[in-house]
């Protein structure tokens, strides 16, 4: 298939929009050719995951583009950065890292990005709408935008998202096109008790399992008997995008492109069917824990970034209590959510409990944790999945109440009764 470029695309390639536009378009065109795209299409917003600092290469890339005069052409939110701009000195972040990660943040702001600094941009004013063509990076955000909102984005790599934002163009491929958005495989919940489905770790565990089974394909989940909240769906998508590369999932009766199973599959037959029962879920849940012992050094929650609704769930669980001196309690969120929580009076009880808050980034994207943090408890599939490799830490997975209880007790205390242990 030959790639047909528009006059607009050629103008970028010819440098009519400056050297940054030419650089960005030449990368997009090489990608379009590698993927056999026949055309490019317009996008009307972007979420930039290239902000994650991975070392000097990502900083040099950002400064290179900004130095060429790059400016985003469409409204562009930014993902987490490599440093909590104001709070990094309270943690173990090396100064050299902080300075370079900050330079990278500045480069993206200089290119006109909106400083959201969050991996949950769908919970900001920059949330896209159903059917909107967008170019998003950050695996969990991609899954949410496609699945829960019904916006249209491919799974963009870091470095490509900013090229799309600068040109407003992407290869017309994959999930941008309606015909590629139907389900591939069916995951059917069978005899999963309502009490389990109501447990606050259910969607997280289901997401992790969905990712393992589906990998990069589009799963359709049937048989969910509860109404998952937006945060439940956020945790589900993050699990699926960690254990697999799920960019779009459908839940029959819940997500907008799946009013029925038949609609979710677009009339096609599923290529595979998997029955998911309590035993399967229990096994997946157990896999999220890699170090079940007595001790925990830190509870870390907020991946994806903690929302206002989650702050509201958390506060009654810990009000009037105090964490053990042996267990740190960390919440990762955005500046905006922290401000909203402050306005709602939710931060004072957290301070009294001994919780700390980090914004702009998370434990996986900035080297903030001191060496004595060896075991982390979390309710997040994403933290659970990546912490062993990235932080060389053991992980205990549990619900929000278990996380609070463990922090108070100073040792692992999980109530697994509903899961039949």
């Amino acid at each position, binding site marked *: 298939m030959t790639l047909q470029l528009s006059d607009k695309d050629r103008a970028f390639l010819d440098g009519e929009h400056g050297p940054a536009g030419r*650089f960005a378009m*030449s*990368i997009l065109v*090489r*990608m379009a050719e*590698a*993927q*056999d795209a026949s055309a490019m299409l317009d996008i009307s917003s972007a979420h930039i*995951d*290239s902000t*994650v600092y*991975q*070392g*000097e*290469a*990502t900083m*040099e*890339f950002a400064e*290179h583009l900004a130095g060429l005069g790059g400016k985003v052409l469409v409204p562009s939110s930014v993902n987490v950065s490599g440093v909590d701009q104001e709070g990094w000195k309270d943690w173990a972040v090396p100064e050299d890292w902080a300075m370079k990660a900050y330079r990278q943040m500045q480069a993206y702001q200089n290119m006109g990005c909106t400083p959201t600094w969050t991996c949950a941009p769908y919970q900001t004013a920059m949330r896209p709408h159903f059917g909107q063509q967008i170019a998003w*990076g*950050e*695996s969990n955000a*991609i899954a949410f935008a496609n699945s829960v909102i019904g916006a249209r984005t*491919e*799974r*963009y*790599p*870091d*470095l*490509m*998202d900013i090229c799309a934002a600068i040109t407003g163009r992407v290869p017309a491929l994959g999930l941008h096109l309606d015909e590629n958005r139907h389900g591939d495989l069916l995951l059917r919940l069978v005899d999963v008790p309502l009490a389990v489905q109501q447990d606050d770790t259910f969607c997280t565990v289901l997401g992790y399992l969905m*990712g393992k089974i589906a*990998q*990069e394909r589009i799963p359709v989940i049937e048989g969910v008997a509860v109404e998952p909240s937006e945060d439940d769906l956020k945790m589900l998508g993050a699990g699926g*995008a*960690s*254990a*697999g*590369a799920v960019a779009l999932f459908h839940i029959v009766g819940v997500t907008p492109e799946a009013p029925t199973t038949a609609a979710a599959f677009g009339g096609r037959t599923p290529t595979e069917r998997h029955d998911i029962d309590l035993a399967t879920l229990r096994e997946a849940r157990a896999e999220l824990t890699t170090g079940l012992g007595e001790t925990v050094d830190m509870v870390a929650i907020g991946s994806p970034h903690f929302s206002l609704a989650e702050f509201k769930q958390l506060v009654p669980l810990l009000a009037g209590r105090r964490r053990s001196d042996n267990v740190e309690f960390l919440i990762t969120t955005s500046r905006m959510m922290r401000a909203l929580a402050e306005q709602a009076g939710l931060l004072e009880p957290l301070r009294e409990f001994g919780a700390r808050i980090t914004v702009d980034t998370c434990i*996986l994207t900035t080297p903030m944790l001191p060496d004595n943090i060896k075991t982390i408890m979390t309710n997040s599939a994403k933290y659970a*999945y*990546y912490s*062993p*490799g*990235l932080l060389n830490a053991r992980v205990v997975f549990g619900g929000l109440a278990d996380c609070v209880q463990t922090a108070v007790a100073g040792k692992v205390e999980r109530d697994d009764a509903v899961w039949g242990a």
Partner: protein
Amino acid sequence: MPEGASLKGRALVRGTAQAGALTSDEPLSFWGGYDQLTGEIIDRRHPLSGENSAGKILVLPASRGSSTTAAVLLEAVRRENAPAVIITLGTDRFLTLAAIVAEEMYGRTVGIVSVDATGFASLAGASEIKVDDDGTVTRID
């Protein structure tokens, strides 16, 4: 595939190498799975965990998970800890993008070759592979 036999892949980013091979049928997220400072595969759930793939020919079905995989590979290229060539089953846009940007930014090449299912299966367990500029893949051992 018998030793010495060749298959024709598609060179998404042209590269030439003959080197030790690491093969797996499990996808790998480079973010959290690949140490850019050393080239070691550090996803402790991955079958290649503990192997060092710097300068090697890495055969994987695809990357997985995080969008940050591209940034990790770019940094690995900058530090000269990247594989010489990555062979994937079909086109992996994360690895391809990183290799394209690496060429544009640093003038250094990581070859990216996509092969079909039969070709991919024939490389299982290979210990040495040769890759030509045009995407020809030869199993040496």
